[in-house]
């Protein structure tokens, strides 16, 4: 009873706090059945940071990212987005998600819509923009990723790199405050990786807050402002990307980097 009252007093906690960090994760745990995937993650991402997350497969990198916009529901711990407790039942999760752009390894464009429609549909349905306004913004975003000539194509007619750039444009069209990238180049042919990284680099230079799960050490070194090494569901080491990549302190980081560099 008292809990209901206190929640009623807190409500509404739906408006973002401009002074709060974009992402704050406290003692985050995640179980898939018996499998303990995240074992107490503490992480704060400040505005305009580009946080790159590296680590062996199965280390929980993607699960961490997916927990931040609650594609995975945490088993324990807290996730705050711009100061809002996203697990609060009074919070409108859909509205929070519009402020977090998410880019997936497998692009996940809507195959039954053309490129322009892919970029306008959520603007119209979620943000309530008019068709004309949404299309204007979509053209701007497609121009940013260099794909205005593909606006009427269907996703299956595009290369992987082009599809991923459309996916980025789609996310950007919602004017997110931050972007999450879940291995955005891992499904791409090597010659297509560069065009996607180039778009991400520009985005970082424009001051977008970004969290990037990646295997691209070059990108982490040059664009990342912060590097996190994860292994076995824990953050093992974090800090300046150049320093960690050049001079890892932890034995597990050393072992991992010696294999991938």
């Amino acid at each position, binding site marked *: 009873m008292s809990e209901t009252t206190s929640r009623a007093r807190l409500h509404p906690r739906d408006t973002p706090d401009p002074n709060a960090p974009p992402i704050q994760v406290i003692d985050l745990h995640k179980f898939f059945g018996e499998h303990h995937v995240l074992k107490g993650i503490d992480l704060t991402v400040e505005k305009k940071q580009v946080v790159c997350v590296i680590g062996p497969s199965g280390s929980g990198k993607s699960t961490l990212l997916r927990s931040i916009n609650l594609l995975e529901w945490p088993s324990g711990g807290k996730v705050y987005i711009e100061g809002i407790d996203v697990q609060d039942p009074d919070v409108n999760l859909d509205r929070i998600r*519009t402020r977090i752009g998410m880019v*997936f390894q497998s692009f996940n464009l*809507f*195959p*039954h819509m053309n490129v322009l429609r892919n970029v306008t549909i959520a603007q119209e*349905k979620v943000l309530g923009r008019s068709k004309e306004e949404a299309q204007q913004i979509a053209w701007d975003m497609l121009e940013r990723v260099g794909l205005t000539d593909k606006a009427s194509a*269907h996703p*299956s007619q595009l290369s992987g790199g082009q599809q991923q750039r459309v996916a980025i444009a789609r996310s950007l069209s919602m004017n997110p405050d931050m972007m999450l990238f879940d291995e955005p180049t891992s499904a791409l042919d090597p010659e297509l990786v560069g065009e996607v990284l180039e778009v991400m680099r520009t985005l970082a230079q424009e001051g977008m807050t970004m969290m990037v799960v990646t295997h691209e050490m070059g990108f982490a070194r040059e664009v990342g402002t912060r590097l996190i090494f994860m292994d076995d569901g824990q953050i093992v080491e974090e800090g300046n990307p150049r320093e960690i990549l050049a001079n890892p302190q932890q034995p597990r980081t050393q072992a991992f980097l010696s294999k991938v560099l």
Partner: protein
Amino acid sequence: MALRDIRPTVRRRASRVSSYVVFLAILAVLVSLADWENLSKNFLRADVAATMFPMVWRAAFNTLWYTAASFVAGTILGTVFALMKMSKGPLKWFAVAYIELFRGLPAMLTILLMAFAIPIAFSSFKIPSTISALVALSLVSSAYTAEIIRSGIEAVAKGQREAARSLGMTHMQTTMSVILPQAFRIVIPPLTNELVLLLKDTSLFFAVGATKFSKELLQFGRDAGTTNANFTPYMVVAVFYLVITIPLTWLVSKLEKKMAVKK
């Protein structure tokens, strides 16, 4: 020259030719044994066929619109039941029970039960038996369609829902604009199958009786057969069914190819 010395290509050709010969021989025996004079007198009388026109067009039209109505109603209901079955909570169990019930009963039994039950239940509305039969067939169809559509929804890649949700779309928006349009494309072939089955199931309407103008093809054919004491009307009706179903399946396969390219 022993058999195994023959070249493989020649041997294959020989075995193919001999199988044709056996098939044709059996066919020839059957054809020669049949009483063709009596068959054509009973099944292929042009004068009897002529008496069926032009009313047979009306019956064909009825068959088509009964099919279309129950298919549309069945697909809409089936989509609702598919979504209910995939939800959590009591609605799911209602959908499961509904689907099991109407898939488990013969369509004919459902049609008969509805034809008796609906006029009694809603006696003040004077509902014609054809409407009762249409309701029954829609219910039967929706049970099958629900399973078809559910399989389609499950075949849509998991990342599609995640992408839509991560853009802030609600569960309902995601289902209506992202999941269902893709699911329907996936299930076009089994839905066509269902449409053809439904077309043929409208023939069960003869069980509930119809007026002169509401007869569907089979009942019209039966009545014409009885009036003329001849089976020719059945042949005419058979041709009508094929004239509908064959172009229909052809059209849908074209549609399917077109959709596949656009995907």
